[in-house]
């Protein structure tokens, strides 16, 4: 959230940019125009690289796809507006297709695949006469006849892109991008499907670059063989601008685009013109090595020092009932057991991690799951939440879970935490709680960008829920802190809070007290009881602390090497000789 005085910066920049138009010669306007086109393309690239962690080396090719689409469509007699829309749509589609392999491959390989696309586009696509269409002309509508007006249009396009980026980062789409980058498959529990999310990022990035291409085409009219802006060199320069600008910082990127593309031409002088690109390439390397968060990071530090952030008021949490969520129908039937696992087996390669486990959890219980390392406790959680290859049957409220996707299982009312954190450390506490509620978002990621009233209302509601959940754990004042900056014990509580925010009936906590001191463990165990008493939750806890088990659990199961070796009241189970032997690693 921007405080009021901070809002003045973008406004001031916009006024200055518009005011400039009257004072500049045609040549200088053309330079600024190319700065804006580059900035838009770099912003599109940055959306993909900084948010989803996918490095595309094909964005100059995408720029070409946009430009040539506009010229081909416009040159065939379509109106200018149709040509621009076609450029945006076609580029988005091409980027999505190029993004398809990323569903199967990761970082380094994506870079190689996009590099191969860039090369093929340059050598094959952009050398075909039916693509480059040197004989066709994209004619401007009469309102854009003068270069000044075209420049103003480019400014408006830049403003639009900045607005879209802002919408993306504050809604479901942006949260999903980051989640896919940092926690991958685990985000599926929250309702984030990695595949469609990645493709959306490619499509969005492509659409933005396509817009830049259409602007370029409008300015040039025809391009023909002048394909230099679409070459690999340019792709790398876009990467340089995005990284030097400061990953994720829109202001930094616009400034970097100006420094690389605008300053040398405007300031004149051969030295500056010749050496600026070389220096910027060097700066790219320095930026990666030193990680100063780029131009944007430096700027933010200056602004933070000059204008200290005011705390944003957090929304009121009265009247938020975390348990009141819309569930898929017909689940409110009273059944004796909430969760019933029958003959559940999980096999990884030749290793049987769980062997015909049968157990049940009744409504309102706190059930302990104990056993030595490698006993299969977390594997059982993975089986319930949909992250393990399972045979057998796991029924929740009498619905078979095994045919349901992870997000569907969350919707049915199960939520879990991970032993080693299933949240995004780079984001704030509040953002993580919003991420955990993705399945409750009720609007498609792509639609959220439009900023419809319903989206805004929904987001406000999710924010209220997030703060209500934080309130339970006494974490409200930390809502704006970056998760990774918090102490370990606090991070664990944030993770439980985010699971609670997702509105579960059944909460699976994987070693929630691991790494905590005795007092912290005791306090957290007290919270377990509160969750049951106040929210009516049922809990399954994987625990190593015997005092915690004895204090909070109604029933306990003990696993060894994937097999159930004891069950019963906690006092009996922890006193069982077989259980003791299992923990001490000796046979009775």
């Amino acid at each position, binding site marked *: 959230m921007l405080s009021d005085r901070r809002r003045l910066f973008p406004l001031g920049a916009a006024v200055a940019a518009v005011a400039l138009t009257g004072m500049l010669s045609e040549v200088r306007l053309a330079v600024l125009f190319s700065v804006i086109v580059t900035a838009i393309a770099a912003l599109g690239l940055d959306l993909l690289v900084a948010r989803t962690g996918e490095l595309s080396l094909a964005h100059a090719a995408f720029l070409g796809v946009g430009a040539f689409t506009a010229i081909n469509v416009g040159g065939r007699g379509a109106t200018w507006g149709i040509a621009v829309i076609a450029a945006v749509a076609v580029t988005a589609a091409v980027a999505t297709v190029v993004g398809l392999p990323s569903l199967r491959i990761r970082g380094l390989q994506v870079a*190689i695949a996009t590099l*191969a696309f860039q090369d*093929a586009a340059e050598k094959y696509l952009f050398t075909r006469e039916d693509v480059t269409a040197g004989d066709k002309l994209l004619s401007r509508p009469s309102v854009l006849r003068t270069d000044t007006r075209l420049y103003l249009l480019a400014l408006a396009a830049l403003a639009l892109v900045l607005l879209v980026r802002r919408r993306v980062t504050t809604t479901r789409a942006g949260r999903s991008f980051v989640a896919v980058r940092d926690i991958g498959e685990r985000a599926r529990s929250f309702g984030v499907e990695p595949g469609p999310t990645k493709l959306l990022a490619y499509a969005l990035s492509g659409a933005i670059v396509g817009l830049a291409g259409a602007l370029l085409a409008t300015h040039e009219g025809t391009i023909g063989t002048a394909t230099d802006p679409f070459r690999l060199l340019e792709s790398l320069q876009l990467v340089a601008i995005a990284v030097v600008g400061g990953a994720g910082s829109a202001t930094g990127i616009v400034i970097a685009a100006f420094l690389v593309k605008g300053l040398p031409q405007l300031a004149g002088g051969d030295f500056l013109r010749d050496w600026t690109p070389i220096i910027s390439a060097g700066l*790219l390397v320095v930026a*990666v090595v030193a990680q100063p968060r780029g131009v944007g990071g430096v700027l933010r530090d200056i602004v933070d020092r000059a204008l200290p952030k005011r705390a944003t008021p957090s929304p009121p949490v009265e009247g938020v009932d975390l348990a009141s969520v819309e569930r898929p129908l017909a689940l409110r039937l009273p059944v004796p057991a909430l969760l019933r696992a029958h003959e559940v087996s999980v096999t990884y390669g030749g290793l049987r991690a769980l062997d015909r486990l049968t157990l049940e959890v009744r409504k309102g219980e706190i059930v302990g799951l104990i056993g030595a390392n490698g006993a299969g406790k977390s594997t059982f959680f993975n089986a319930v939440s949909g992250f393990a290859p399972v045979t057998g049957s796991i029924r929740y409220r009498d619905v078979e879970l095994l045919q349901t996707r992870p997000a569907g299982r969350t919707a049915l009312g199960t939520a879990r935490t991970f032993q080693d954190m299933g949240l995004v450390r780079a984001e704030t506490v509040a953002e993580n709680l919003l991420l955990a509620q993705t399945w409750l978002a009720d609007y498609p990621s792509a639609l959220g960008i439009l900023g419809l009233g319903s989206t805004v209302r929904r987001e406000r509601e999710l924010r209220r829920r997030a703060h209500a959940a934080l309130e339970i754990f006494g974490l409200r004042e930390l809502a704006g802190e970056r998760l990774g900056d918090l102490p370990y014990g606090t991070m664990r509580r944030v993770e439980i809070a985010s699971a609670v925010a997702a509105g579960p009936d059944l909460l699976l906590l994987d070693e929630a007290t691991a790494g905590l001191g005795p007092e912290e463990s005791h306090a957290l165990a007290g919270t377990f009881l509160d969750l049951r008493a106040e929210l009516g939750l049922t809990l399954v806890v994987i625990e190593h602390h015997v005092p915690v088990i004895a204090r909070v659990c109604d029933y306990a199961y003990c696993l060894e090497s994937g097999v159930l070796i004891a069950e019963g009241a906690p006092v009996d189970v922890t006193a069982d000789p077989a259980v003791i032997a299992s923990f001490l690693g000796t046979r009775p």
Partner: protein
Amino acid sequence: MAELVTGLSAGAAYALVAVGIVLIFKGTRALSFAQGEIGAFGLFIGLRWSDRGVPGFGWHLPLLMTLFVAVAVGALLGFVVERLVMRRLVHRPPLDGVIATLGIALFLALLEKQWFGAATQFAPSPVGSWRVRVFGATLTAPRVVALLAAAAVAVILYLFFERTRFGLGVRATTDDATVARLLGVPVNQVYRFAWVVGGALAGLAAALLAPAFGGLTPFAQTSFSIRSLAGAVIGGLDSIWGAIIGSLAVGVIETYVKGHSSIGGVDSLAVLVLVIVTLVVRPRGVFGSAGAV
């Protein structure tokens, strides 16, 4: 048959760079996109000294020496890049290394443009202008040398990895750099070794490729190194043999496609398809190990 031989000779040149890429990946877990430009930079300097004389001496390098200058400058650049940049990125996400090497490629290419001009330079063969006829194909000297060099590099690296203590150290570093360090493997030397050899191979490849592919242009080598990256990724990023076989396959398929179609850039299209199909069907590459990427 003739196409096969021509393709193999092109593939052999790609393989020289690809082996360097894989060696660097095995040694440091970094994927270098800078190899093409590192090699080209060395050759640019060699050609300049051959053409206008070594600065301060006025002595014109014989053509053969341009190859050695390319190799030496490549090795030196490898050394500098490792010491100043890549060693600081060892514990970072792999994408940081990629972006850094891209920055280095961009930096070198722009520097070449500034110092040597944007026009394509004629690159005479450093190994003579003789030709050999094999199975109906006429191979120029650089292509023959590329084939021989690729074979020699394969044998030497095989012996190095299997028979020497240091080779064992490189393999240990590939598996787990931290454990290797604890066991007394001089990990920093491994990093340096990988980059120096990778740079030298890039210089050798540039000196042999440029004459065979119509000269030297700033940044063109980066496009050529796409072939090597493709070969490495097809063969498996952590397999020297995979890189060689993958690069040979790229060379053969590219030559075949070019020979049977008059459409411009169809070879690049073929490489794209080959890369995508391999990555989608078998992401780790044909000979790569499971945890490679």
